[in-house]
Protein backbone atom coordinates (compact mmCIF):
# COMPACT_ATOMS: atom_id res chain seq x y z
CA UNK A 1 0.00 0.00 0.00
CA UNK A 2 1.16 3.47 -0.81
CA UNK A 3 1.92 5.68 2.17
CA UNK A 4 1.84 9.34 2.72
CA UNK A 5 -0.80 11.98 2.74
CA UNK A 6 0.78 13.87 -0.16
CA UNK A 7 0.60 10.84 -2.45
CA UNK A 8 -3.04 10.33 -1.60
CA UNK A 9 -3.87 13.92 -2.52
CA UNK A 10 -1.74 13.69 -5.66
CA UNK A 11 -3.71 10.65 -6.82
CA UNK A 12 -6.95 12.60 -6.78
CA UNK A 13 -5.50 15.78 -8.26
CA UNK A 14 -6.91 15.33 -11.82
CA UNK A 15 -10.34 14.70 -10.36
CA UNK A 16 -10.08 17.69 -8.02
CA UNK A 17 -9.19 19.97 -10.94
CA UNK A 18 -12.02 18.60 -13.08
CA UNK A 19 -14.44 18.87 -10.19
CA UNK A 20 -13.53 22.50 -9.55
CA UNK A 21 -13.20 23.69 -13.14
CA UNK A 22 -15.95 21.77 -14.91
CA UNK A 23 -18.52 21.02 -12.22
CA UNK A 24 -18.37 23.30 -9.17
CA UNK A 25 -17.39 26.46 -10.99
CA UNK A 26 -20.11 26.05 -13.68
CA UNK A 27 -22.70 25.19 -11.05
CA UNK A 28 -22.04 28.35 -9.02
CA UNK A 29 -21.24 30.57 -11.99
CA UNK A 30 -24.49 29.84 -13.79
CA UNK A 31 -26.40 30.48 -10.58
CA UNK A 32 -24.64 33.85 -10.28
CA UNK A 33 -24.98 35.02 -13.88
CA UNK A 34 -28.64 34.07 -13.84
CA UNK A 35 -29.05 37.25 -11.79
CA UNK A 36 -27.19 39.42 -14.33
CA UNK A 37 -27.75 40.64 -17.88
CA UNK A 38 -24.40 39.19 -19.01
CA UNK A 39 -24.18 38.90 -22.76
CA UNK A 40 -21.39 38.02 -25.20
CA UNK A 41 -19.38 40.94 -26.61
CA UNK A 42 -20.76 43.39 -24.07
CA UNK A 43 -18.09 44.98 -21.91
CA UNK A 44 -20.07 45.25 -18.69
CA UNK A 45 -23.02 43.68 -17.03
CA UNK A 46 -25.40 44.58 -14.24
CA UNK A 47 -27.09 42.68 -11.47
CA UNK A 48 -30.76 42.46 -12.26
CA UNK A 49 -32.06 40.40 -9.36
CA UNK A 50 -34.86 38.08 -10.38
CA UNK A 51 -35.58 39.94 -13.61
CA UNK A 52 -34.43 37.04 -15.78
CA UNK A 53 -36.64 34.64 -13.90
CA UNK A 54 -39.72 36.84 -14.14
CA UNK A 55 -39.01 37.42 -17.82
CA UNK A 56 -38.79 33.64 -18.34
CA UNK A 57 -42.14 33.07 -16.71
CA UNK A 58 -43.80 35.47 -19.11
CA UNK A 59 -41.79 34.47 -22.20
CA UNK A 60 -44.13 32.41 -24.41
CA UNK A 61 -41.15 30.66 -26.04
CA UNK A 62 -39.87 29.49 -22.68
CA UNK A 63 -43.29 28.46 -21.43
CA UNK A 64 -43.95 26.39 -24.51
CA UNK A 65 -40.46 24.85 -24.23
CA UNK A 66 -41.19 24.04 -20.59
CA UNK A 67 -44.55 22.47 -21.35
CA UNK A 68 -43.05 20.46 -24.24
CA UNK A 69 -40.35 19.21 -21.89
CA UNK A 70 -42.98 18.06 -19.39
CA UNK A 71 -44.99 16.38 -22.15
CA UNK A 72 -41.81 14.65 -23.30
CA UNK A 73 -40.95 13.39 -19.81
CA UNK A 74 -44.47 12.36 -18.86
CA UNK A 75 -45.15 10.76 -22.23
CA UNK A 76 -41.97 8.72 -22.57
CA UNK A 77 -40.92 7.51 -19.11
CA UNK A 78 -43.97 5.34 -18.30
CA UNK A 79 -43.76 3.62 -21.70
CA UNK A 80 -39.99 3.21 -21.55
CA UNK A 81 -40.11 1.77 -18.03
CA UNK A 82 -42.94 -0.68 -18.64
CA UNK A 83 -41.64 -1.87 -22.02
CA UNK A 84 -38.10 -2.22 -20.65
CA UNK A 85 -39.35 -4.32 -17.74
CA UNK A 86 -41.45 -6.42 -20.11
CA UNK A 87 -38.46 -7.03 -22.40
CA UNK A 88 -36.27 -7.89 -19.41
CA UNK A 89 -38.79 -10.52 -18.25
CA UNK A 90 -39.00 -11.83 -21.82
CA UNK A 91 -35.25 -12.45 -22.14
CA UNK A 92 -34.50 -13.25 -18.48
CA UNK A 93 -35.11 -17.00 -18.67
CA UNK A 94 -32.51 -19.15 -20.40
CA UNK A 95 -33.49 -20.19 -23.94
CA UNK A 96 -31.63 -20.74 -27.21
CA UNK A 97 -30.79 -17.46 -28.96
CA UNK A 98 -31.26 -15.35 -25.84
CA UNK A 99 -27.95 -13.53 -26.35
CA UNK A 100 -28.92 -12.51 -29.86
CA UNK A 101 -32.20 -10.97 -28.75
CA UNK A 102 -30.61 -9.15 -25.83
CA UNK A 103 -27.89 -7.75 -28.07
CA UNK A 104 -30.37 -6.74 -30.76
CA UNK A 105 -32.64 -4.95 -28.30
CA UNK A 106 -29.70 -3.14 -26.80
CA UNK A 107 -28.18 -2.06 -30.11
CA UNK A 108 -29.99 1.30 -30.44
CA UNK A 109 -28.60 2.31 -27.04
CA UNK A 110 -25.00 2.21 -28.21
CA UNK A 111 -25.73 4.00 -31.47
CA UNK A 112 -24.99 7.69 -31.73
CA UNK A 113 -28.05 9.84 -30.92
CA UNK A 114 -27.26 12.03 -33.92
CA UNK A 115 -27.27 9.03 -36.25
CA UNK A 116 -30.54 7.74 -34.84
CA UNK A 117 -32.11 11.16 -35.20
CA UNK A 118 -30.94 11.30 -38.83
CA UNK A 119 -32.32 7.85 -39.64
CA UNK A 120 -35.69 8.73 -38.12
CA UNK A 121 -35.74 12.06 -39.95
CA UNK A 122 -35.63 9.95 -43.08
CA UNK A 123 -38.17 7.38 -41.88
CA UNK A 124 -40.60 10.11 -40.79
CA UNK A 125 -40.36 12.40 -43.80
CA UNK A 126 -43.09 12.96 -46.38
CA UNK A 127 -43.58 9.79 -48.40
CA UNK A 128 -41.13 8.03 -46.07
CA UNK A 129 -41.34 4.59 -44.55
CA UNK A 130 -43.60 5.43 -41.62
CA UNK A 131 -45.96 7.46 -43.82
CA UNK A 132 -46.21 4.53 -46.23
CA UNK A 133 -46.95 2.13 -43.39
CA UNK A 134 -49.57 4.51 -42.02
CA UNK A 135 -51.39 4.77 -45.35
CA UNK A 136 -51.29 1.00 -45.72
CA UNK A 137 -53.30 0.58 -42.53
CA UNK A 138 -55.68 3.32 -43.61
CA UNK A 139 -54.33 6.27 -41.63
CA UNK A 140 -53.66 9.61 -43.27
CA UNK A 141 -50.08 10.72 -42.61
CA UNK A 142 -49.44 14.47 -42.21
CA UNK A 143 -49.12 16.17 -45.59
CA UNK A 144 -45.55 17.42 -45.15
CA UNK A 145 -44.24 14.53 -43.09
CA UNK A 146 -44.45 13.79 -39.37
CA UNK A 147 -41.71 16.21 -38.33
CA UNK A 148 -43.08 19.20 -40.21
CA UNK A 149 -46.45 19.17 -38.49
CA UNK A 150 -47.10 20.57 -35.02
CA UNK A 151 -49.63 17.89 -34.17
CA UNK A 152 -47.23 14.98 -34.77
CA UNK A 153 -43.63 16.26 -34.51
CA UNK A 154 -43.13 16.06 -30.75
CA UNK A 155 -44.96 12.75 -30.42
CA UNK A 156 -42.84 11.26 -33.21
CA UNK A 157 -39.66 12.26 -31.42
CA UNK A 158 -41.04 10.83 -28.18
CA UNK A 159 -41.78 7.52 -29.90
CA UNK A 160 -38.24 7.41 -31.20
CA UNK A 161 -36.90 8.10 -27.73
CA UNK A 162 -38.84 5.18 -26.26
CA UNK A 163 -37.60 2.96 -29.07
CA UNK A 164 -33.97 3.85 -28.47
CA UNK A 165 -34.01 3.77 -24.65
CA UNK A 166 -35.84 0.54 -23.81
CA UNK A 167 -32.82 -1.68 -24.49
CA UNK A 168 -30.65 0.18 -22.02
CA UNK A 169 -33.20 0.06 -19.21
CA UNK A 170 -33.91 -3.58 -20.06
CA UNK A 171 -30.28 -4.31 -19.17
CA UNK A 172 -30.63 -2.51 -15.86
CA UNK A 173 -33.80 -4.47 -15.07
CA UNK A 174 -32.02 -7.71 -16.01
CA UNK A 175 -29.30 -6.89 -13.50
CA UNK A 176 -32.02 -6.27 -10.91
CA UNK A 177 -33.77 -9.55 -11.74
CA UNK A 178 -30.51 -11.43 -11.39
CA UNK A 179 -30.16 -10.16 -7.83
CA UNK A 180 -33.45 -11.77 -6.74
CA UNK A 181 -32.61 -15.11 -5.07
CA UNK A 182 -34.10 -18.19 -6.76
CA UNK A 183 -35.08 -19.64 -3.37
CA UNK A 184 -37.90 -17.13 -3.13
CA UNK A 185 -39.49 -18.44 -6.29
CA UNK A 186 -38.92 -22.04 -5.19
CA UNK A 187 -40.62 -21.34 -1.88
CA UNK A 188 -43.51 -19.66 -3.68
CA UNK A 189 -43.79 -22.66 -5.99
CA UNK A 190 -43.97 -25.00 -2.99
CA UNK A 191 -46.69 -22.97 -1.34
CA UNK A 192 -48.67 -23.10 -4.58
CA UNK A 193 -48.34 -19.53 -5.87
CA UNK A 194 -48.75 -19.26 -9.64
CA UNK A 195 -46.50 -17.33 -12.03
CA UNK A 196 -48.65 -14.22 -11.98
CA UNK A 197 -48.86 -14.21 -8.19
CA UNK A 198 -45.06 -14.66 -8.04
CA UNK A 199 -44.59 -11.66 -10.30
CA UNK A 200 -46.73 -9.35 -8.14
CA UNK A 201 -45.52 -10.64 -4.78
CA UNK A 202 -41.84 -11.28 -5.41
CA UNK A 203 -40.51 -9.80 -8.63
CA UNK A 204 -42.12 -6.35 -8.53
CA UNK A 205 -41.48 -5.53 -4.84
CA UNK A 206 -37.87 -6.70 -5.05
CA UNK A 207 -37.30 -4.72 -8.23
CA UNK A 208 -38.27 -1.51 -6.50
CA UNK A 209 -34.69 -0.19 -6.03
CA UNK A 210 -33.93 -0.97 -9.67
CA UNK A 211 -37.11 0.75 -10.79
CA UNK A 212 -36.21 3.77 -8.70
CA UNK A 213 -32.80 3.91 -10.34
CA UNK A 214 -34.36 3.59 -13.80
CA UNK A 215 -36.91 6.33 -13.12
CA UNK A 216 -34.41 8.78 -11.64
CA UNK A 217 -31.76 8.26 -14.33
CA UNK A 218 -34.33 8.42 -17.11
CA UNK A 219 -36.00 11.57 -15.86
CA UNK A 220 -32.69 13.38 -15.34
CA UNK A 221 -31.85 12.48 -18.93
CA UNK A 222 -35.26 13.17 -20.43
CA UNK A 223 -35.68 16.62 -18.89
CA UNK A 224 -32.52 17.57 -20.79
CA UNK A 225 -33.66 16.36 -24.20
CA UNK A 226 -31.79 18.35 -26.85
CA UNK A 227 -29.95 16.45 -29.60
CA UNK A 228 -33.10 14.94 -31.16
CA UNK A 229 -34.72 18.36 -31.27
CA UNK A 230 -31.65 20.02 -32.73
CA UNK A 231 -31.20 17.44 -35.47
CA UNK A 232 -34.82 16.71 -36.35
CA UNK A 233 -36.78 19.95 -36.06
CA UNK A 234 -34.53 22.78 -34.79
CA UNK A 235 -37.25 23.45 -32.24
CA UNK A 236 -39.86 24.26 -34.89
CA UNK A 237 -43.37 22.80 -35.07
CA UNK A 238 -43.90 23.10 -31.34
CA UNK A 239 -40.98 20.86 -30.35
CA UNK A 240 -38.69 23.30 -28.55
CA UNK A 241 -37.56 22.09 -25.12
CA UNK A 242 -35.90 23.89 -22.22
CA UNK A 243 -32.36 22.86 -23.17
CA UNK A 244 -33.07 23.75 -26.80
CA UNK A 245 -34.38 27.12 -25.60
CA UNK A 246 -31.25 27.71 -23.54
CA UNK A 247 -29.09 26.82 -26.53
CA UNK A 248 -31.00 29.26 -28.75
CA UNK A 249 -30.98 32.11 -26.25
CA UNK A 250 -27.49 31.55 -24.92
CA UNK A 251 -25.36 30.10 -27.69
CA UNK A 252 -26.96 30.57 -31.04
CA UNK A 253 -28.17 34.08 -31.79
CA UNK A 254 -28.30 36.62 -28.95
CA UNK A 255 -25.80 34.95 -26.61
CA UNK A 256 -27.78 36.12 -23.59
CA UNK A 257 -25.70 34.17 -21.07
CA UNK A 258 -27.55 35.52 -18.03
CA UNK A 259 -31.02 34.81 -19.37
CA UNK A 260 -30.09 31.34 -20.63
CA UNK A 261 -28.42 30.47 -17.31
CA UNK A 262 -31.58 31.41 -15.46
CA UNK A 263 -33.50 28.99 -17.69
CA UNK A 264 -30.88 26.31 -17.02
CA UNK A 265 -31.21 26.80 -13.28
CA UNK A 266 -34.95 26.69 -13.34
CA UNK A 267 -34.74 23.32 -15.07
CA UNK A 268 -32.07 22.21 -12.60
CA UNK A 269 -34.38 22.96 -9.70
CA UNK A 270 -37.23 21.10 -11.40
CA UNK A 271 -35.02 18.06 -11.99
CA UNK A 272 -33.71 18.09 -8.43
CA UNK A 273 -37.22 18.39 -7.02
CA UNK A 274 -38.44 15.59 -9.22
CA UNK A 275 -35.59 13.27 -8.19
CA UNK A 276 -36.20 13.93 -4.50
CA UNK A 277 -39.90 13.25 -5.00
CA UNK A 278 -39.16 9.93 -6.67
CA UNK A 279 -36.83 8.93 -3.83
CA UNK A 280 -39.43 9.78 -1.22
CA UNK A 281 -42.24 7.96 -3.00
CA UNK A 282 -40.24 4.85 -3.78
CA UNK A 283 -38.49 4.53 -0.43
CA UNK A 284 -41.79 4.66 1.41
CA UNK A 285 -42.86 1.32 2.78
CA UNK A 286 -46.03 -0.22 1.52
CA UNK A 287 -47.33 -0.81 -1.96
CA UNK A 288 -46.72 1.96 -4.47
CA UNK A 289 -47.40 -0.23 -7.46
Amino acid at each position, binding site marked *: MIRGRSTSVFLSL*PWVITLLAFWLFPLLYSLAIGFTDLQLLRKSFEWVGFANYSELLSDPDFLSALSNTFIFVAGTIPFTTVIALFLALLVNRKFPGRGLFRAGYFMPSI*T*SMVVIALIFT*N*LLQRGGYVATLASMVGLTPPEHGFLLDSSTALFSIMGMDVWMSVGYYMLIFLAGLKAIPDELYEAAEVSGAGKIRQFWSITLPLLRPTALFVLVINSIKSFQVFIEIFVMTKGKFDTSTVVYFLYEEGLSSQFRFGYASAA*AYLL*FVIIAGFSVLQFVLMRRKGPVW
Partner: protein
Amino acid sequence: MVTHSSFVSRAGRYTLLGAVLLIMVFPLLWMFRISLLSPGTSLAISEIVGAGYTLSNYLDLFTSSEILRSLVNSILVGGAVTIGNVLFCFMAGYGLARYHSLTNRLLFGSVLVVLMIPAHVTIIPTYILMLKLQLYDSYGALILPFLVNPIGIFLVKQYVESIPPSMEEAARIDGASDWQILMRVVMPVCRPALAVLAIQVFFTNWNSFLFPFILTSSQELRTLPVALAMLQGHQAIDWQHLMAGSAIAVLPVLVLFVILQRQIVSGITAGAIKQ
Protein backbone atom coordinates in the same frame (compact mmCIF):
# COMPACT_ATOMS: atom_id res chain seq x y z
CA MET B 1 -51.27 -32.23 -24.43
CA VAL B 2 -48.57 -30.70 -22.29
CA THR B 3 -45.94 -30.87 -25.04
CA HIS B 4 -48.40 -29.45 -27.54
CA SER B 5 -49.21 -26.40 -25.43
CA SER B 6 -45.55 -25.84 -24.59
CA PHE B 7 -44.77 -25.95 -28.32
CA VAL B 8 -47.46 -23.34 -28.96
CA SER B 9 -46.22 -21.11 -26.18
CA ARG B 10 -42.65 -21.46 -27.40
CA ALA B 11 -43.67 -20.56 -30.95
CA GLY B 12 -45.60 -17.58 -29.63
CA ARG B 13 -42.65 -16.52 -27.55
CA TYR B 14 -40.24 -16.61 -30.48
CA THR B 15 -42.71 -14.76 -32.70
CA LEU B 16 -42.90 -11.99 -30.13
CA LEU B 17 -39.13 -11.95 -29.60
CA GLY B 18 -38.56 -11.84 -33.35
CA ALA B 19 -41.08 -9.07 -33.94
CA VAL B 20 -39.44 -6.90 -31.28
CA LEU B 21 -36.01 -7.68 -32.72
CA LEU B 22 -37.16 -6.56 -36.14
CA ILE B 23 -38.47 -3.27 -34.74
CA MET B 24 -35.21 -2.68 -32.90
CA VAL B 25 -32.79 -3.35 -35.74
CA PHE B 26 -34.88 -2.19 -38.70
CA PRO B 27 -33.81 1.49 -38.61
CA LEU B 28 -30.14 0.49 -38.63
CA LEU B 29 -30.71 -1.88 -41.55
CA TRP B 30 -32.55 0.94 -43.32
CA MET B 31 -29.54 3.20 -42.83
CA PHE B 32 -27.21 0.61 -44.37
CA ARG B 33 -29.62 0.01 -47.26
CA ILE B 34 -29.82 3.69 -48.18
CA SER B 35 -26.06 4.10 -47.83
CA LEU B 36 -25.64 1.40 -50.49
CA LEU B 37 -28.01 2.99 -53.05
CA SER B 38 -26.39 4.79 -55.94
CA PRO B 39 -26.53 8.58 -55.54
CA GLY B 40 -29.68 10.16 -56.92
CA THR B 41 -31.83 7.04 -56.67
CA SER B 42 -35.39 7.74 -55.58
CA LEU B 43 -36.09 6.84 -51.95
CA ALA B 44 -39.63 5.66 -52.64
CA ILE B 45 -40.17 2.34 -50.86
CA SER B 46 -41.24 0.57 -54.06
CA GLU B 47 -38.04 1.61 -55.84
CA ILE B 48 -35.65 0.81 -53.01
CA VAL B 49 -36.60 -2.86 -52.84
CA GLY B 50 -35.37 -3.65 -56.34
CA ALA B 51 -32.50 -1.18 -56.49
CA GLY B 52 -28.88 -2.29 -56.75
CA TYR B 53 -26.00 -1.98 -54.32
CA THR B 54 -22.96 0.26 -54.59
CA LEU B 55 -20.12 1.39 -52.36
CA SER B 56 -19.69 4.66 -54.22
CA ASN B 57 -21.14 6.80 -51.40
CA TYR B 58 -18.53 5.44 -49.01
CA LEU B 59 -15.76 6.00 -51.54
CA ASP B 60 -16.96 9.59 -52.06
CA LEU B 61 -16.83 10.22 -48.32
CA PHE B 62 -13.39 8.73 -47.92
CA THR B 63 -12.07 10.90 -50.72
CA SER B 64 -13.72 14.09 -49.45
CA SER B 65 -11.66 15.72 -46.74
CA GLU B 66 -14.64 16.76 -44.61
CA ILE B 67 -15.85 13.42 -43.27
CA LEU B 68 -12.38 11.89 -43.27
CA ARG B 69 -11.12 14.75 -41.13
CA SER B 70 -13.97 14.35 -38.67
CA LEU B 71 -13.35 10.60 -38.49
CA VAL B 72 -9.71 11.30 -37.61
CA ASN B 73 -10.85 13.89 -35.04
CA SER B 74 -13.21 11.39 -33.43
CA ILE B 75 -10.46 8.80 -33.19
CA LEU B 76 -7.88 11.26 -31.81
CA VAL B 77 -10.20 12.85 -29.28
CA GLY B 78 -11.71 9.51 -28.27
CA GLY B 79 -8.24 8.02 -27.85
CA ALA B 80 -6.92 10.90 -25.76
CA VAL B 81 -10.01 11.01 -23.55
CA THR B 82 -9.92 7.24 -23.05
CA ILE B 83 -6.24 7.19 -22.06
CA GLY B 84 -6.82 10.10 -19.69
CA ASN B 85 -9.76 8.38 -18.04
CA VAL B 86 -7.99 5.05 -17.61
CA LEU B 87 -5.05 6.73 -15.91
CA PHE B 88 -6.84 9.39 -13.87
CA CYS B 89 -9.85 7.32 -12.80
CA PHE B 90 -7.44 4.58 -11.80
CA MET B 91 -5.37 6.95 -9.68
CA ALA B 92 -8.36 8.57 -8.00
CA GLY B 93 -10.28 5.31 -7.58
CA TYR B 94 -7.25 3.66 -6.00
CA GLY B 95 -6.67 6.57 -3.64
CA LEU B 96 -10.29 6.64 -2.54
CA ALA B 97 -10.34 2.87 -2.01
CA ARG B 98 -7.19 2.73 0.12
CA TYR B 99 -7.28 5.94 2.17
CA HIS B 100 -10.16 6.88 4.36
CA SER B 101 -9.11 10.36 5.42
CA LEU B 102 -11.74 13.04 5.80
CA THR B 103 -10.60 14.66 2.54
CA ASN B 104 -11.05 11.40 0.70
CA ARG B 105 -14.46 10.78 2.15
CA LEU B 106 -15.47 14.26 0.99
CA LEU B 107 -13.98 13.57 -2.43
CA PHE B 108 -15.93 10.36 -2.74
CA GLY B 109 -19.03 12.29 -1.75
CA SER B 110 -18.26 14.71 -4.59
CA VAL B 111 -18.08 11.79 -7.03
CA LEU B 112 -21.57 10.67 -6.05
CA VAL B 113 -22.99 14.19 -6.11
CA VAL B 114 -21.57 14.96 -9.56
CA LEU B 115 -23.26 11.80 -10.88
CA MET B 116 -26.58 13.45 -10.09
CA ILE B 117 -25.88 16.90 -11.56
CA PRO B 118 -27.61 17.43 -14.89
CA ALA B 119 -24.92 18.52 -17.35
CA HIS B 120 -27.08 21.19 -18.96
CA VAL B 121 -26.39 23.70 -16.15
CA THR B 122 -22.71 23.55 -17.04
CA ILE B 123 -23.09 24.33 -20.75
CA ILE B 124 -22.93 28.11 -20.68
CA PRO B 125 -20.28 28.47 -17.95
CA THR B 126 -18.09 25.89 -19.72
CA TYR B 127 -18.48 27.82 -22.95
CA ILE B 128 -17.46 31.06 -21.22
CA LEU B 129 -14.58 29.35 -19.40
CA MET B 130 -13.22 27.97 -22.68
CA LEU B 131 -13.42 31.44 -24.26
CA LYS B 132 -11.52 32.97 -21.32
CA LEU B 133 -8.88 30.22 -21.32
CA GLN B 134 -8.54 30.74 -25.09
CA LEU B 135 -9.31 27.05 -25.54
CA TYR B 136 -12.59 27.60 -27.38
CA ASP B 137 -12.50 25.91 -30.80
CA SER B 138 -9.39 23.84 -30.06
CA TYR B 139 -8.61 20.19 -29.36
CA GLY B 140 -8.14 21.26 -25.75
CA ALA B 141 -11.84 22.11 -25.51
CA LEU B 142 -12.75 18.68 -26.86
CA ILE B 143 -10.47 16.80 -24.47
CA LEU B 144 -9.64 18.65 -21.23
CA PRO B 145 -13.10 18.74 -19.61
CA PHE B 146 -13.57 14.99 -20.12
CA LEU B 147 -10.31 13.47 -18.86
CA VAL B 148 -11.74 11.94 -15.71
CA ASN B 149 -15.32 10.93 -14.90
CA PRO B 150 -17.16 10.02 -11.71
CA ILE B 151 -18.55 6.68 -12.91
CA GLY B 152 -15.01 5.57 -13.79
CA ILE B 153 -13.69 6.51 -10.37
CA PHE B 154 -16.58 4.66 -8.78
CA LEU B 155 -15.89 1.56 -10.88
CA VAL B 156 -12.17 1.47 -9.99
CA LYS B 157 -12.79 2.15 -6.31
CA GLN B 158 -15.21 -0.80 -6.09
CA TYR B 159 -12.73 -3.04 -7.85
CA VAL B 160 -9.69 -2.07 -5.77
CA GLU B 161 -11.68 -2.63 -2.58
CA SER B 162 -12.16 -6.25 -3.63
CA ILE B 163 -8.36 -6.84 -3.87
CA PRO B 164 -6.49 -7.56 -0.63
CA PRO B 165 -3.65 -5.04 0.00
CA SER B 166 -1.13 -7.80 0.78
CA MET B 167 0.51 -7.66 -2.66
CA GLU B 168 1.14 -3.95 -2.32
CA GLU B 169 2.66 -4.48 1.14
CA ALA B 170 4.93 -7.22 -0.19
CA ALA B 171 6.10 -4.95 -3.02
CA ARG B 172 6.80 -2.20 -0.50
CA ILE B 173 8.97 -4.54 1.57
CA ASP B 174 10.85 -5.41 -1.63
CA GLY B 175 11.65 -1.71 -1.91
CA ALA B 176 9.31 -0.65 -4.70
CA SER B 177 8.42 3.04 -4.88
CA ASP B 178 4.85 4.34 -4.62
CA TRP B 179 4.59 4.94 -8.36
CA GLN B 180 6.03 1.50 -9.15
CA ILE B 181 3.56 -0.19 -6.86
CA LEU B 182 0.72 1.68 -8.47
CA MET B 183 1.74 1.06 -12.08
CA ARG B 184 3.43 -2.34 -11.93
CA VAL B 185 1.51 -4.09 -9.18
CA VAL B 186 -1.97 -2.66 -8.84
CA MET B 187 -2.73 -1.57 -12.39
CA PRO B 188 -2.25 -5.01 -13.98
CA VAL B 189 -4.57 -6.55 -11.39
CA CYS B 190 -7.22 -3.95 -12.22
CA ARG B 191 -7.09 -4.68 -15.92
CA PRO B 192 -10.65 -6.10 -16.18
CA ALA B 193 -12.17 -3.03 -14.54
CA LEU B 194 -10.00 -0.70 -16.62
CA ALA B 195 -11.06 -2.48 -19.83
CA VAL B 196 -14.72 -1.95 -18.95
CA LEU B 197 -13.95 1.68 -18.15
CA ALA B 198 -12.01 2.27 -21.38
CA ILE B 199 -14.77 0.84 -23.57
CA GLN B 200 -17.46 2.81 -21.79
CA VAL B 201 -15.54 6.08 -22.07
CA PHE B 202 -14.64 5.55 -25.70
CA PHE B 203 -18.23 4.79 -26.69
CA THR B 204 -19.61 7.76 -24.80
CA ASN B 205 -17.05 10.06 -26.33
CA TRP B 206 -17.46 8.63 -29.82
CA ASN B 207 -21.21 9.33 -29.72
CA SER B 208 -21.02 12.61 -27.84
CA PHE B 209 -22.55 15.62 -29.57
CA LEU B 210 -23.53 18.48 -27.27
CA PHE B 211 -20.17 19.63 -25.90
CA PRO B 212 -18.11 19.04 -29.06
CA PHE B 213 -20.80 21.00 -30.89
CA ILE B 214 -20.92 24.03 -28.59
CA LEU B 215 -17.19 24.21 -27.77
CA THR B 216 -15.94 24.35 -31.37
CA SER B 217 -16.90 26.34 -34.45
CA SER B 218 -14.45 25.51 -37.22
CA GLN B 219 -15.09 22.69 -39.63
CA GLU B 220 -11.58 21.26 -39.08
CA LEU B 221 -12.42 20.43 -35.47
CA ARG B 222 -15.73 18.67 -35.96
CA THR B 223 -16.04 15.16 -34.63
CA LEU B 224 -18.17 12.69 -36.59
CA PRO B 225 -21.53 13.31 -34.87
CA VAL B 226 -21.06 17.08 -35.22
CA ALA B 227 -20.07 16.78 -38.87
CA LEU B 228 -23.10 14.58 -39.59
CA ALA B 229 -25.52 16.94 -37.85
CA MET B 230 -24.06 19.85 -39.84
CA LEU B 231 -24.25 17.95 -43.11
CA GLN B 232 -27.96 17.54 -42.50
CA GLY B 233 -28.37 21.28 -42.06
CA HIS B 234 -28.06 21.89 -45.79
CA GLN B 235 -31.20 22.56 -47.81
CA ALA B 236 -31.63 19.45 -49.95
CA ILE B 237 -30.61 16.36 -48.01
CA ASP B 238 -28.38 13.92 -49.86
CA TRP B 239 -29.59 10.84 -48.00
CA GLN B 240 -27.27 8.37 -49.67
CA HIS B 241 -24.14 10.17 -48.50
CA LEU B 242 -25.63 11.15 -45.16
CA MET B 243 -26.52 7.53 -44.37
CA ALA B 244 -23.09 6.35 -45.53
CA GLY B 245 -21.52 8.88 -43.14
CA SER B 246 -23.83 7.64 -40.39
CA ALA B 247 -22.85 4.07 -41.12
CA ILE B 248 -19.18 5.03 -40.78
CA ALA B 249 -20.00 6.47 -37.35
CA VAL B 250 -21.96 3.38 -36.29
CA LEU B 251 -19.86 0.54 -37.70
CA PRO B 252 -16.88 0.71 -35.31
CA VAL B 253 -19.29 0.75 -32.38
CA LEU B 254 -21.25 -2.23 -33.67
CA VAL B 255 -18.10 -4.24 -34.35
CA LEU B 256 -16.65 -3.48 -30.92
CA PHE B 257 -20.01 -4.29 -29.36
CA VAL B 258 -20.12 -7.73 -30.95
CA ILE B 259 -16.56 -8.49 -29.78
CA LEU B 260 -16.72 -6.92 -26.33
CA GLN B 261 -20.37 -7.40 -25.42
CA ARG B 262 -19.64 -8.82 -21.98
CA GLN B 263 -17.46 -5.90 -20.87
CA ILE B 264 -19.88 -3.34 -22.26
CA VAL B 265 -22.86 -4.82 -20.49
CA SER B 266 -21.02 -5.15 -17.18
CA GLY B 267 -19.85 -1.54 -17.45
CA ILE B 268 -23.38 -0.34 -17.95
CA THR B 269 -24.94 -2.37 -15.17
CA ALA B 270 -22.11 -1.82 -12.66
CA GLY B 271 -23.46 1.54 -11.58
CA ALA B 272 -26.98 0.20 -11.28
CA ILE B 273 -26.38 -2.88 -9.16
CA LYS B 274 -24.15 -1.19 -6.66
CA GLN B 275 -26.88 1.26 -5.64
